[in-house]
């Protein structure tokens, strides 16, 4: 009896304080967001590509706002650890998460119970086209040579890349289908290790993004999955030019999300920051040469893209 009373009293205190906290936040949260540091959750370890992008973003954002961003790395399970973590936070705008298309594919491939709409996808910032990279020393450099080699090897041509089931693997399978060739996917622990193997002529191609050949004179891009040639890589043909249809928009995208249910006024504050960063010369100077399309697609458009990607992955799985 006494125990029950204690528990009841504790519950009462907890719920009252929860209400008090919630009320206090509503009072000042909408008005002058942010009043405390914003946590930017990154799903890779320090030094990973996503970590660098996030830190560059906070660096540039600090030109336009006094808000403090704190980058927190939550690596593990290909992003699921970070997503599960953000899903437990309050929708108060103080937890921002760096997201890419591979987070969406991970939700599907791991059968996660998380719905992508647990998050409000508030800004798509970069669109990075997929491409096929070859080694200049193999004699199989252009797309025509890749196709001829694939036909000669009758299904034993080796395509190197990161983990099976990831974005690059899925893209490679679409390319094989569209081009009418057969090949084998050799998954490596990371894109970097797969590139090392391509340098060592252990396979014929590597599937990734055009920016990955920068600083590596041995590599060429055979063909890129866009509708038009990339201005940064004017000599690289698109699959469309090569007579292969249906590969005009195979991309990796990167952006940011918050927990769904975050107040509209807070998202408007973020929209302003994202717009300014997108037009910032330093941001452009860093990412444009890599072949990235720098965009700012706000929440309505971005949420639709995420849902469509999620549905497409789900459909492909069945």
């Amino acid at each position, binding site marked *: 009896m006494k125990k029950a009373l204690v528990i009841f009293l504790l519950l009462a205190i907890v719920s009252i304080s929860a209400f008090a906290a919630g009320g206090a936040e509503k009072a000042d949260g909408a008005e002058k967001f942010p009043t405390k540091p914003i946590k930017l959750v990154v799903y890779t370890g320090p030094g990973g590509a996503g970590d660098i992008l996030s830190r560059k973003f906070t660096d540039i954002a600090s030109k336009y706002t006094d808000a403090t961003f704190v980058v927190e790395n939550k690596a593990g*399970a290909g992003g699921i650890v970070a997503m599960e973590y953000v899903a437990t936070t309050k929708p108060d705008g103080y937890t921002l998460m760096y997201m890419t298309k591979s987070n969406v594919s991970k939700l599907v491939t791991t059968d996660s119970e998380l719905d992508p709409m647990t998050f409000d996808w508030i800004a798509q910032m970069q669109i990075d086209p997929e491409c096929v990279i070859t080694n200049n020393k193999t004699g199989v450099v252009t797309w025509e040579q890749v196709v001829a080699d694939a036909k000669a090897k009758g299904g034993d041509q080796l395509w190197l890349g990161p983990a099976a089931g990831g974005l690059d693997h899925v893209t490679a399978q679409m390319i094989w289908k569209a081009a009418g060739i057969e090949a084998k996917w050799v998954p*490596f622990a990371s894109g970097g290790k797969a590139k090392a193997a391509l340098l060592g002529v252990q396979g014929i191609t590597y599937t990734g993004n055009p920016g990955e050949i920068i600083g590596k004179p041995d590599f060429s891009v055979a063909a890129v999955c866009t509708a038009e040639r990339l201005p940064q890589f004017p000599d690289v043909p698109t699959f469309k030019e090569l007579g292969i249809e249906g590969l005009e928009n195979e991309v990796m995208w990167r952006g940011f999300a918050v927990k769904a249910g975050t107040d509209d006024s807070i998202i408007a504050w973020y929209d302003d920051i994202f717009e300014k960063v997108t037009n910032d010369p330093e941001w452009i100077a860093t990412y444009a040469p890599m072949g990235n399309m720098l965009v700012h697609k706000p929440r309505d458009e971005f949420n639709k893209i995420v849902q469509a990607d999620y549905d497409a992955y789900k459909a492909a799985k069945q």
Partner: protein
Amino acid sequence: MEILNNFFMGFGYLGHIQPIIAIVAGVILGIMVGAMPGLSPSMGVALLVPFTYNLQPHVALILLISIYIASEYGGSITAVTINTPGTPSAVVTAFDGYPLTKQGKAGTGLGVSLVASTIGGIIGTIILIFFSVPLARVAVRMHPAEYFALAIFGLTTVASLGGKNWAKAFLAAMLGLLINTIGIDPISGVKRFTFGTYRLFDGFALIPALIGLFALSEVFTRIEENKLEKGAQTKFDKEQWPSFMDYWKLKFAIIRSSIFGTLIGIFPGAGATIAAFLSYDIAKKLSKSPETFGKGNPEGVAAAEAANSSSVGGALVPLLALGIPGSASTAVLVGALMIHDLVPGPMLFVERPDIVYSLFAALMVANFVMLILGLMGAKLWIKVTVIPKKVLMPAILAISMIGSFAVNYSFFDVAACIGFGVSGWLLKKYGFPMAPIVLGMVLGKLAETNFRRAVIMGGYNVFFTRPASLILLILAVLSIGIPLYQTYKANKKEKNRI
């Protein structure tokens, strides 16, 4: 000799105050990171990366590289003094380092580990400077079949690690391999033994397992023995610091292990731990008195430490020559370079030779700074052995909890660490050694993924048609077969005598 000119230019750059501060600070931090169970070299480097974003690129890299090199040594301090390896590769250092401490010769263990680390680091750097381009070309040609064969060769060291206890050592290694099967299948993406929790998607992290198996199990054993009230029995005096002649005797072991460690370090994915295990095994097999290994032979400490420190230079070879990281720590360095808009790879030598050569110079200087700070510090580290156990054990317990939490800021890892601690304590009670479990965990993934990758690429024959793979596999068979045959023969002789 353009390379020498560039090298002197690199040294010239170090004449400023900032790089020197970076080296000294990096070495001190690195030793601390290494000595702290739970902070591995790659985590130490990663933790400091955000602090370097606003530094000049030279200074940032010099700081990070100093941390990397010193942390590979730092792991040996706790391995020698309290049998708790601070880094995965220092597991091997503890084999002979801790028995030395128990014999009251902690000074020998600490001195040898410091000198071997320094010489290893310098030899690794020299190989990096002069041979990085051709070596990197060989490294990228290493086929998955060869990685598999190397991993199997590494696993065979269990046979000699275990000694008479080889059956139990073998079982322990199997346990390590089994633990490795937990998590998302790296080739096909199938979930294995994850029991529906995303926490297990990556399997068990190595660091919490390492802390549990070594540090916590030791604490539990002491509690069980209930001998905490006794202070440390180790006495120490000036006599126990090794003389020049003591070091001179180890020259072949150190040089051989350094060259070997550098070569293993070059292959992306192999790394310091495998280098240390294999070097130790080779030192034992070439020794005139292999039976003294594991009982406090300074040669064992020297082989392990020279190998893991020299692997730093090796891991930098593919990074600088090709832009591909050779280890977890160098993967973090890639990020640190890119934040300063520097793209690692062959073009870096052409576009920014100042960066590359000041890095080489800093590697050299950092090794000497480590030697000096290590010699000064050794007088301090050795006092760890006189801390009363009833103070030391709770401290280890607390550090273990923090260390395992720090890996991913996750309480799951803390729970895993305690789980490994209890299992380690039980296994030790029944005479199972801990090191083979770690070896199995380190090599299991390397062996499995490369086996399957090799089969995708070239079918099952590929292991025997590639000469390097075949040679490594034959060496593996001999390395497990010869000790077993010798034991068999020795047993037979003994029986005949009776």
